[in-house]
C-alpha cells in the first residue's frame, strides 16, 4: 500500500472513495470518460444511468478487476491507491462487492457461504487449522437473521430463489464487514414486496457502513431516499437529490425518456 502522493503529508481528500479524471477504453470504446466521483464516509449513494453508461465498469475499476488508463482511484481519505492493488488485496482493504448477477457458492450450504465470507484471516494455513474452523453458529445466525434466511441455513445455496440469492450475497457482504459496500442491481428480478424489504435492509446496513448502490429501478432508488448520481457515456451527467436528478432535462432525455 502506498500513499497516493508518495509523501502522505498533504491529504488529497477526506472521502472514503475518490475517483478523479478516470478514463478507460476497450478497443477504442470509451467505457469511462473522465469520471470524477467522491463518496463520503457513512454515505449511501445511488448510481443510475442507461445501459452502457459505465456503472459496472466503474465497480470493476474500484474492485481491481479493470485497470483505468488514466486517473486516480483513492480509498480511505486518499491513503490507498486502488489502481496499484489486485482484487484480493482490495477486498482485504475493506471493499465488498455484490455482483449484478447474484453469485453465491451454489454447492455450499447457505451457512457455509456466510462462513467463507466472514471477516478474519484468509490464508491457506489459517483456514486449514485456524479460527475459520471454529466460527460460532451464532455469528452466522446473526447475519442470516439480518437477511431473513435463517430457515434456509442448511440448504444448498443453489436451491434458493433468485431473490434469496441476492439477499444471501448481501449477507455475505455484511459478514465481510467492509468499509465500503458496492451493490450492483440488488433488486433485479425481485417482486415488489421483496424490493421494498431490500430497501429497508440497505438502509439498515447504511447505519454502520458506506454503501454505493447501482440500480435501474427508480421506485427503489426513490425509496432509498439518498443522493443520486446519473452516469451517461462514462461520466457524471447529473448529481443531487432524486427529485433534482429526475427533473433534469438531460437525464430525462438520455435515460428516463419522454
Amino acid at each position, binding site marked *: 500500500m502506498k500513499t497516493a502522493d508518495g509523501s502522505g503529508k498533504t491529504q488529497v481528500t477526506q472521502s472514503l472513495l475518490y475517483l478523479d479524471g478516470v478514463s478507460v477504453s476497450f478497443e477504442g470504446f470509451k467505457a469511462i470518460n473522465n469520471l470524477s466521483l467522491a463518496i463520503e464516509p457513512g454515505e449511501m449513494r445511488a448510481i443510475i444511468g442507461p445501459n452502457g453508461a459505465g456503472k459496472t465498469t466503474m465497480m470493476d475499476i474500484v*474492485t481491481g*478487476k479493470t485497470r483505468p488508463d488514466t486517473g486516480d482511484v483513492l480509498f480511505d481519505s486518499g491513503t490507498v491507491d486502488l489502481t496499484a492493488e489486485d*482484487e*484480493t488485496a482490495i*477486498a*482485504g482493504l475493506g471493499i*465488498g*462487492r455484490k*455482483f449484478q448477477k447474484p*453469485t*453465491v*457458492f*451454489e*454447492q*455450499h*450450504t447457505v451457512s*457455509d457461504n456466510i*462462513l*467463507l*465470507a466472514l471477516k478474519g484471516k*484468509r*490464508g*491457506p494455513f489459517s*483456514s*486449514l*487449522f*485456524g479460527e*475459520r*474452523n471454529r466460527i460460532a453458529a451464532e455469528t452466522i445466525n446473526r447475519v442470516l437473521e439480518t437477511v431473513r434466511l435463517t430457515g434456509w441455513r*442448511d*440448504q*444448498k445455496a*443453489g*436451491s434458493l430463489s433468485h431473490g434469496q440469492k441476492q439477499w444471501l450475497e448481501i449477507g*455475505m457482504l455484511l459478514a*465481510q464487514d467492509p468499509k465500503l459496500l458496492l451493490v450492483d442491481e440488488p433488486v433485479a428480478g425481485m417482486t415488489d414486496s421483496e424490493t421494498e424489504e431490500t430497501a429497508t435492509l440497505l438502509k439498515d446496513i447504511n447505519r454502520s457502513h458506506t454503501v454505493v448502490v447501482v440500480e435501474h429501478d427508480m421506485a427503489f432508488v426513490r425509496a432509498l431516499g439518498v443522493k443520486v448520481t446519473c452516469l451517461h457515456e462514462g461520466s457524471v451527467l447529473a448529481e443531487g437529490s432524486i427529485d433534482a436528478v429526475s427533473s433534469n432535462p438531460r437525464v430525462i432525455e438520455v435515460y428516463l425518456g419522454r
Partner: protein
Amino acid sequence: MITARLLQQLDRTGWIFLALLGIALFYVPFANLALPETSPLYVPSYMVALLGKYLCFAILALSLDLVWGYCGILSLGHGAFFALGGYAMGMYLMRQIGARGVYANPILPDFMVFLNWKELPWFWHGFDMFWFAAVMVLLVPGLLAFVFGWFAFRSRVTGVYLSIITQAMTYALLLAFFRNDMGFGGNNGLTDFKDILGFQIQAQETRVALYMLTVLALGASFLFARIIVMSAFGKVMIAIRDAENRTRFLGYRVEHYKLAVFTVSAMMAGLAGALYVPQVGIINPSEFSPSNSIEAVVWVAVGGRGTLVGAALGAFTVNGMKTIFTTGALAPYWLFVLGSIFIAVTLVLPRGIVGSLQSIAWNKHPKTGAPVAGTHRVPGPAE
C-alpha cells in the same frame, strides 16, 4: 483434537471404505500366506501383486480428486508426479543392488557401466540411504508441482489451458527420461531390483508386507485428504472450483490455495509411485506417458469426482476391467471398452458411481441438508 474432529466428520461412505481397507489389510495376507492353495478362500500371489498395484492407483486417484474434484484443477499430468516418486524409489533400489549387478560394480548401476560412465552422477548421491530416498519421493514431485504451479496459477492459467500445459509437462518429462544421458537408465528405466531395507524383494513375505504398507498408505492418504476437504480450506477449494472470481473478490488469494493443494496432491501421487515400483519391479519412462495421466482422470470420473472414496473405487473398477479386458481373447478391445466406459459414465452417471449413489441417498432423506432435486450443477470437466 484433530483425530476427534476427523472421526466426527467421517460420513457413512468413509466408514465403509475404511472398513473395507481394514479387511483387505488382514484378510489378504492371511489368505495368501496361511491358507493352503487348495482352499477356496486362498488368495494367489499374483492377486496380491495385482491388488497392490490397484491400491497404488487408488492413491494416485485420490490425489487427483483432491485437485480436480474439489478445486477444479483438471491436471492431465499427475502421472508425472507418480513416475517421479517411482524413480526416486527406483534409484534407492538400484543402489541396493550393489555388486550383485551383471557388471558387479559396487557403486555404479549396470546401465551406467554399460554406458562407460566412470562415476556416479551427482543426483544419484544419497540414494543409497532409504531415508534420503523417502524424502525425495515427496520432495521431487512436490517441488516440480510448486514451481510449475507458481507460474501457472500466478498467471491465472485455468481450465483447458492448464490441462494442456500439464499434459505437455508430462510429455516433456517422458522425452527427457527416454534419453540415456539423463542418467536414469533411458528407455529401459530401472529394474532388476534385489532387496529393499535388507529384505529380498522377490520373497512373498516382502511382497505381502509391501501390499500391507500400501493399504495403510491408502487409508492414511484418504484420512489426510478428508481432513483437508472438511476444513475451511476445503470449503475455499470448492468455492474456487465453482466461482473463482467470487472467491477472489471475497479476499481469498486463489493462487495460494491452488498452489498449496496442487503441491500436496503431487506429493501424494509421488508416494503412490514409490509404493508401486517395488511391487511391479520396474520403472521406465512409459510411466510418464500422457495416456497414463488421462486414464487416471477416467478413474476419478467413473468413481465420482469430489467424493474421495469414489476416486479410489474408480481406480479399482476401471483397472479391474482393464485386467479382464487386456488378457485372453478380449485383449484387442480394451481401448474401445475404456472409451465406452468414459462415454457411458458421462452420459448416464455424470456424477460418477459414488456421486450418483449419494444423490439418491439425499433424495430419499431430504432432511439432511438436501439439495432440491434437479438443482445439482455438475461442473464440466474443464471448469
